[in-house]
């Protein structure tokens, strides 16, 4: 079974020299400080400063926490520059998608448009699952940019965890309770 919706593939590692020439590096390092890692709060500032949300409202802290978790392979609770670049790539892709659908520039899209967006990312959920996803990530019946990004991040993260446990790639994965809690409480 194909696993959909991974968006941008992971970026190759950067050589130090390359990093410093990267325009995003400026935003990143001004926030990251000495340790070269950013927390959820710092990520929120960083994304706001570099205008990632465009004319949309800045990201919720909660959404930033989800973003850190999505890429936090070393379970450190913080994000380095390479991970940040990967995130920026994914965010740009998702934003393009959203902007295309948000024709009236209201900052929100309808459930139907969200469904189309998920479909175009390769997700193919049952009506029941789709309904659950949409309801959880909407505000007053519409999906704001932040809701949409949080949804994309979570779907990607959970799908990633699932896929790694689906050894026969049949669309089935076994979870022990403890593992299930670790995966779901961080996503």
């Amino acid at each position, binding site marked *: 079974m194909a696993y959909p919706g991974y968006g941008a593939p992971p970026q190759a590692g950067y050589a130090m020299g390359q990093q410093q020439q990267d325009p995003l590096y400026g935003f990143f390092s001004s926030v990251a400080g000495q340790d070269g890692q950013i927390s959820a709060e710092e990520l929120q500032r960083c994304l706001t400063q570099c205008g990632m949300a465009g004319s949309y409202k800045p990201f919720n802290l909660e959404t930033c926490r989800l973003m850190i978790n999505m890429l936090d392979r070393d379970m450190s609770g913080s994000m380095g520059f390479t991970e940040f670049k990967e995130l920026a790539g994914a965010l740009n892709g998702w934003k393009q998608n959203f902007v295309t659908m948000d024709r009236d520039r209201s900052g929100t899209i309808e459930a139907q448009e969200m469904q189309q967006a998920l479909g175009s990312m390769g997700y193919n959920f049952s009506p029941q699952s789709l309904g*659950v996803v949409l309801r959880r990530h909407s505000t007053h019946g519409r999906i704001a940019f932040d809701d949409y990004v949080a949804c994309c991040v979570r779907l990607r993260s959970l*799908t990633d965890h699932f896929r790694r446990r689906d050894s026969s790639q049949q669309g089935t994965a076994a*979870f022990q309770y*403890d593992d*299930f*809690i670790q995966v779901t*409480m*961080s996503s």
Partner: protein
Amino acid sequence: MAYPGYGGYGAPMPGMPHQGMPHHQGHPMAGHPMGQMGGQPQGAYAQYGAQYQGAAYGAPPPATNDPMYGYFTAIAGQDGEIDADELQRCLTQSGISGTYTPFSLETCKIMIAMLDRDHTGKMGFNEFKDLFTALNGWKQNFMMFDRDRSGTVEPQEMSQAVSAMGYRVSPQALNVIIRRYSKNGRVYFDDYVACCVKLRTLTDVFRRRDTMQQGAVSFQYDDFILCTMSI
């Protein structure tokens, strides 16, 4: 395999036999009032069973002299249901947070999701009552550890609070939980409640699929997404 601690949102009543779950040691339980949902607990599963009895659909109309009904209807309006914003107002007005900061909108959203059995995205009065009971239980538990009434607990105390509710998870899982719900190295009441809501919902979801009671579930992808994205 040993059955893991599926816990609940309140400790078992003192003196009640606790089937298949090791009782948390080194923690004062006597005289500790915990919110229970309907019925008497008879071990971990009974707590969950009781939770679904007599709730929501087909239940008799709420007693209009129920004080909680006042808060609820003042806000619910015509359809008798409240959304996350209204729930936030309702809970703030009821003063359930006490001296702690009121619940964030995000926490209210997941509270609705926790009890949203008819998938309306809103909460009716009976669900609201169930929530209130759970919140009282969780608050009592939190207050046991927030001795200085700062509205926060330390990471270690958060681990103890999670264990006190009956959850048996690895130190690794506890670390994940603490990292997820800490702010500046402490856990605030609102985040603690969000954690309780998620733990309860996810545990419930897992348990209902663990038909062999082995502490393991084989998920189909679509169902996995349904379960995990709902909360």
